[in-house]
């Protein structure tokens, strides 16, 4: 029998039809939508006069442009309010479940899908958002799509996609204390560059990946797109199954154990062929931080920014433009550099485990006076749990305020913007120019490195402040 990768198994079993020499017609099990990339898709359906084929397989939430304060009040920004109202209206018209603002299950699309049990192993999952790769942590084929493709899924539950090539990234060994899954993925991207996995779907494997919690795995899969990959996935295992068992809508289903038997088969066959294989050693990874304007421009927090001599001639124009934007000089150390903003949140690091790690770090300490901090839970459920566990209280005592859920400062479509020229240590996924506000200077890092910066007011190695 032909050996197959996990990705092949899921992809191939969802191909409705293969166009000769062309893309596959891929069936989509679960579709997520949000307010920003869906209105034009619904407008397309209306123009064609066609219905949504399977409304039960689409779930909607409002997350991208919403405020993270006073969510019980009408949204002040007229365009944002209009966009959210439009989604509400479209969901009503087409019979789609909508977890809008103030709904107890509202939150960032890539946080609520997994926590509410919509994301399951073996599924094909798409959303008009590039961080859909997050859901791959459950052993599903999940990837971001454009609005035309959102319209295709609404209309036919299928999209046309060329099958990507396959890459396996193996990370073996144990992580050092103070090093997290965020550091693993920032390290990998710094090694292979922001376009290094373009055209590939990545499977993450190895003992360091297997040792991660579901939250940690989601952080890794989430940032697959930041190295250009179509998506990333991890074979489901005991940790996955335990996580799912605890979700009532999944774990209490009469056929849970029957499903489990199927999910157990979701792994790459021994000897399955990957187009590219990379291996990294976890013990070598230090807390990471980015210094430039794409996620591939990362270094260990105690390292120096590359010198100009280390950059190839064809890359130097982009490198200089990037450092110029950041206000950095080639070859400089960034440890000790002042920080103005700290953002904990987003679909990358807005889960309960991230809030716990951040809170544990700042417990008994005080936020630096020069730092403005935004602590934004990824969902209502995360927010409620943070309150229940006492995290909100500890945060408050340390000088932090827990906001309401949303994408917030990750893309700064709402008012949570970082002012021009200011430095932000952010647990989000993109450090592009202007990403957190026009002129904002973003440095991506883990929740621990963000917590260390929030306490000291400057770039700090979290290992220096860890309690033993």
């Amino acid at each position, binding site marked *: 029998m032909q050996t197959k990768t996990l990705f092949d198994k899921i992809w191939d079993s969802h191909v409705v039809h293969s166009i000769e020499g062309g893309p596959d*017609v891929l069936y989509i099990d679960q579709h997520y939508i949000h307010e920003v990339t869906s209105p034009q898709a619904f407008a397309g359906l209306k123009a064609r006069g066609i219905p949504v084929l399977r409304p039960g397989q689409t779930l909607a939430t409002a997350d991208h442009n919403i405020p993270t304060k006073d969510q019980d009040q009408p949204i002040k920004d007229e365009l944002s309010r209009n966009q959210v109202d439009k989604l509400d209206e479209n969901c009503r018209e087409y019979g789609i479940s909508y977890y809008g603002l103030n709904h107890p299950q509202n939150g960032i699309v890539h946080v609520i899908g997994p926590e509410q049990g919509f994301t399951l192993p073996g599924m094909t999952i798409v959303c008009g958002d590039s961080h859909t790769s997050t859901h791959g942590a459950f052993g599903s084929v999940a990837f971001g799509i*454009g609005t*035309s493709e959102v319209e295709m899924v609404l209309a036919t539950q299928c999209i046309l996609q060329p099958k990507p090539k396959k890459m396996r990234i193996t990370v073996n060994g144990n992580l050092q204390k103070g090093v997290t899954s965020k550091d693993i993925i920032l390290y990998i991207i710094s090694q292979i560059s922001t376009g290094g996995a373009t055209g590939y779907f990545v499977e993450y494997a190895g003992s360091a990946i297997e040792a991660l919690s579901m939250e940690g795995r989601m952080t890794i899969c989430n940032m697959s797109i930041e190295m250009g990959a179509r998506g990333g996935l991890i074979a489901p295992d005991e940790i996955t199954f335990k996580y799912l068992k605890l979700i009532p809508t999944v774990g209490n289903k009469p056929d849970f154990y029957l499903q489990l038997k199927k999910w157990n088969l979701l792994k790459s066959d021994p000897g399955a062929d990957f187009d590219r294989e990379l291996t990294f050693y976890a013990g070598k990874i230090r807390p990471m931080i980015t210094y430039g304007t794409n996620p591939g421009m990362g270094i260990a927090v105690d390292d120096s920014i590359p010198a100009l001599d280390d950059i190839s001639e064809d890359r130097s124009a982009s490198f200089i433009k990037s450092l110029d934007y950041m206000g950095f000089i080639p070859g400089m150390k960034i440890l000790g550099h002042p920080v103005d903003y700290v953002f904990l949140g987003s679909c990358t690091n807005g889960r309960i485990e991230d809030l716990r790690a951040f809170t544990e770090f700042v417990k008994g300490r005080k936020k630096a006076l020069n730092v403005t901090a935004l602590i934004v839970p990824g969902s209502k459920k995360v927010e409620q749990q943070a309150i229940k566990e006492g995290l909100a209280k500890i945060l408050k005592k340390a000088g932090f305020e827990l906001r309401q859920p949303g994408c917030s400062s990750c893309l700064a479509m709402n008012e949570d913007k970082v002012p021009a020229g200011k430095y932000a240590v952010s647990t989000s996924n993109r450090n592009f120019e202007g990403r957190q506000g026009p002129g904002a200077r973003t440095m991506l890092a883990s929740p621990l490195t963000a917590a260390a910066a929030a306490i000291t007011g400057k770039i700090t190695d979290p290992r220096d402040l860890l309690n033993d």
Partner: protein
Amino acid sequence: MINKTAIQIDMPKTKFDILESTCVPLPLENVDTDQIIPARFLSATTRDGFGENLFRDWRYDKSGNKNKEFVLNNPKYTGQVLVAGKNFGSGSSREHAVWAIADYGFRAVVSSFFADIFRNNSLNNGLLPVVVREDFLKDLLEKITKKPETMVRIDLDQQLFSVLPAGESVNFEINPYKKECLMKGLDDIDYLLSIRNMITAYEFRKTLGK
């Protein structure tokens, strides 16, 4: 190949065959979709008008004045072909990036490689992504920067990109299905709607557990 019975509805798409134009050079790598169209302009609920804010933060300064150094503000460089450094369109899946480029008046983007989602989005909107070798791209960028009047010709049917009048030519790859869609002005939804029976048959097989 496209099912000939595909339902052809509304929204006439521009057909793409041969394009001859001057080029606009953007010799930067990793141009991400946040630069193409910043997130704060994504609140619209229609597909129109994004061209106004294409490369907004590079095109205008903080006070909203045109940044004279940016290529789109340089009257020497015009045309329907944007030529950019490698890994163009990385980052967010926002189709608004493609709408902005097309709305501004570009019909093709040339680079040595494109981010996957951006490439799909382009093809779904009749904007042709042309992938050329890195050394060819380097020479092309140099040439069009020095001689802005340089014309290029993109022949989709022949999959041929040529520098005019008799400069170098290079073949480019495109999926045959997508090529036919672009040349005939069809889109994927037309095709998918035409195979509805196949889709429901797939669903039926799936519920039977086969």
